[in-house]
């Protein structure tokens, strides 16, 4: 039987929160796993005012992931298979290559090239405009 790295749902109705678990693939989702190596809170929480950096760079809602990276590496090393959502989370930690590349990235790079090109254009002052009275 395959050992999988997968999510086990906890929490309440409309209020999920997940354990990242190591368990046998054919056991029930919420059955007792071999090991709990982390948690994942899929509901985004608003950033607290004290947490923001102040320059207004990122006011995005926050999702929190806890993971025992050493145990995750071990289980990946012995051939445990992550499920798709766990794969996505592990890719954020840099443990495995992302399963899917985000399709928008090339387009964004294209946009950036166009933006850089526009930025380099110098806008010359109008020669016909009269100078101020100081001269």
């Amino acid at each position, binding site marked *: 039987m395959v050992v999988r790295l997968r999510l086990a749902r*906890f929490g309440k109705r409309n209020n999920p*929160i997940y*354990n*990242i*678990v190591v368990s046998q693939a054919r056991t029930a989702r919420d059955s*007792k796993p071999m*090991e*709990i*190596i*982390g*948690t994942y809170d899929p509901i*985004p929480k608003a*950033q*607290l*005012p*004290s947490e923001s950096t102040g320059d207004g760079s*990122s006011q*995005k*809602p*926050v*999702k*929190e*992931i*806890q*993971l*025992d*990276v050493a*145990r995750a590496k071990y289980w990946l090393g012995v051939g445990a298979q992550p499920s798709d959502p766990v794969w996505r989370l592990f890719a*954020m*930690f840099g443990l495995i290559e992302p399963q899917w590349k985000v399709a928008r990235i090339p387009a964004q790079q294209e946009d950036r090239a166009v933006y850089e090109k526009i930025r380099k254009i110098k806008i010359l002052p109008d020669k016909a405009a009269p100078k101020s009275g100081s001269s």
Partner: protein
Amino acid sequence: MPPRLRPSSLTSTANVIPQSLISNSPLLPFLLPLPLRNSMLALSRQPPSSPSSSRQFSTSKPLASSRYRRFEKTPGRRNGFIDWMRDVAPLLNNPTPLRNIPTYMSYKPQPLPRKDGQGDSTPKREFDDQGNAIDSDKPRRVKRPKADEVDWERAMSEMSLSPFPTNPSFEVHPVISTEFREQIYSRIKMGRSVRRVSAELNCELERVAAVVRLKEIERMWEDQNRPLCTEMQTRVHALMPVSHFTDMPQHESITDMRIHPATNNQLFLAVPESMPFSRKDAGDALGILPADQRMPHGELIEVERMRIEGKSMEEMVEVERQREEAEFQAAQAKQERVAAKKKAETVVETDRFQFRLKPAVTGLVGFRYGVPHDDRSRGVVKIPKRVVV
């Protein structure tokens, strides 16, 4: 069958509506048949004939019954209220009272005390006696107080804690003044601890913390060019007793201790007569911290103890300095711990969310299996107990 209130066939309402109802019912125009109603409305639009009925709110003639007479002691003046509003109210509606004397002082049965140059009034006798004595020594030197001038010193000493002049038994705690708050904030900005500022200015720890929080918000709003609504504050300060910042600032008692719920019940404890029983023993018996540690300014006990022992001022200052330093270092260590924990987490930004990746330890992380939720059991507090900012 319910009574018919509006018989359309009848020309007269006398047999349907009792006569007493017609006289003062506000629904009268709607109860009457249409032709009669029109004539009634036309009648009510006529200018009032009686000279005394100059009031705006009712055009009906006052009845002779006691119910109507009660509000009409002074006809047309609403029991003197209109006169009061015209003559007295503008004086009381003063947002910036002179010499910080609350406005209500001038509304007392005895208005603000006046200086009396002749010295014949009874309340001013001792001051005048002194003045006369000085006069006899150095004739015509002392400036004689102008008659009918407000005696501000006496007004300050007479200032009570009761905002309602006709109810002197109702006393309130004075409001903290604007300058006092500014002093608290500037001291905290100088790097002093909340505890120390509280002890310096005789202002409770919680109040110092609250003042600093609100001042920070005020500064933020000023930076954002948001208008501050100080009208309410000005008015309240004019109406309430205010504790001002002086050389010996005193706003409230800082060593008041909250009543611990564990001390509400009696506890009988058999103790040998020869054994001393201290506050620490009492705390142990009740299962709570001793009072010396629970009180807001426990360090002042140590200061007082040193003072009684007759220690020199330098020694006391040194002990206080060491205590403050230890406190500061403990706070700094806590800050560093929090910062290190925050540093351990990495942040991944996506288009919509910020993922916070935190390290965890297997065995300590996650939700346990086989443990039921007790959030529905009796006595579990479900509302938030503290504000997270």
